[in-house]
């Protein structure tokens, strides 16, 4: 059985690699693997993982893009269920007609916010480390986050922000654990319209497997909305891209979102 599973995994990886050997890196405007899976660049440097170093340009490929969101209705508290019903998503198990869609990202041009930027469009991103920060620079939205690694505590009663407040510490030489709090509850968790409260706490674990692979695990704890913590991303594999990769912009602007709704979405309604 184990051999059976191993062959399956090896075959998956082989096909992924084989499908990408025709890809060529361009000097500008690389999109990463994205939805098409056609453009993964050559592998980055291989070998053992460097100590306490996540710097580089990373791509989770199609695995980073979750258009249908997560089916977590069984975890809702009564308040969570009430909030979820008010959200009319364009995808996922509670998909609404396009005429009712009230996704703040795709209908208003609001920021994806955190952690939706991880749970919906984790397109390629760059990690930069300074003496007291880890910076996350995301291709999607051309947005950044600051993770403080100077030992400070998270604020106790912060003014909520779209991307919250984050602190990180090295659990060991290869694992950065990030805690976030103070998240604006206007944002959705994902494309399925799953809600969260402003008191949600998020843990990200970035474990460096080797020179070219990260594994990302994200756990959410929000007892107002969910009856227990849950883990939308469990060891998501993320690959290192060459350090000269220039990334495209992927900015979901309000004007473009409105034009799309006017020309396409509002005309496609089924009721």
């Amino acid at each position, binding site marked *: 059985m184990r051999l059976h599973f191993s062959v399956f995994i090896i075959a998956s990886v082989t096909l992924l690699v084989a499908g990408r050997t025709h890809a060529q890196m361009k000097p500008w405007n690389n999109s990463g693997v994205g939805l098409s*899976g056609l453009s993964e660049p050559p592998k980055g440097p291989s070998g053992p993982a460097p100590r306490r170093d996540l710097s580089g340009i990373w791509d989770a490929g199609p695995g980073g893009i979750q258009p249908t969101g997560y089916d977590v209705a069984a975890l809702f508290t009564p308040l969570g269920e009430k909030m979820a019903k008010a959200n009319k998503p364009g995808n996922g198990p509670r998909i609404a007609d396009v005429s009712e869609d009230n996704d703040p990202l795709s209908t208003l041009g609001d920021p994806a916010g955190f952690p939706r930027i991880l749970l919906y469009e984790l397109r390629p991103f760059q990690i930069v480390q300074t003496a007291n920060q880890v910076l996350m620079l995301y291709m999607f939205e051309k947005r950044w986050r600051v993770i403080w690694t100077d030992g400070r505590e998270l604020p106790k009663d912060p003014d909520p922000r779209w991307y919250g407040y984050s602190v990180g510490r090295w659990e060991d030489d290869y694992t950065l654990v990030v805690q976030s709090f103070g998240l604006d509850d206007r944002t959705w968790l994902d494309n399925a319209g799953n809600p969260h409260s402003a008191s949600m706490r998020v843990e990200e674990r970035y474990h460096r497997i080797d020179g070219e692979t990260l594994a990302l695990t994200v756990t959410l704890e929000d007892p107002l909305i969910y009856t227990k913590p849950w883990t939308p991303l469990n060891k998501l594999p993320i690959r290192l891209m060459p350090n000269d990769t220039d990334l495209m912009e992927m900015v979901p602007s309000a004007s*473009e979102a409105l034009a799309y709704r006017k020309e396409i979405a509002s005309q*496609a309604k089924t009721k």
Partner: protein
Amino acid sequence: MKKILFDILGAAALLLVSVPLLAHHGAAALDTGKEITLKGTVTEWIWSNPHCFLKFDANDGTGTVRNWAVETQSPTSMTPRGWSRMSFKAGDEVTVTIEPVKNGQPIGRILHVILPNGQKLIAANPTTPESRPVAPVPVQ
């Protein structure tokens, strides 16, 4: 040996279905599985997020010329397929194969386009029941 072959085919199937069709909204409005091909004249090509869309005038088969608006995925997903902001200009004569919406409006999703020079630009595979993405395999 058969088991190994099965694994390889299974992995190939997983890869195929793990590529989602539309990034931010579902295909519920589409008459999935139905394909129509239209010959028309480009009026506008909008290269934008969350989806690009092509507008063109075409006869719908009943003698009526309608202005169609048909979408693709985002620029980041179309670029690796050879599409660009410069793929079309107003006045281009194109042949467009789409999945239309259910409600009869001149709206749909592009499957492929044949350009004036004969080049074929592929946008998507037809929708299948297996189009839901599969969760990635965790690394050990």
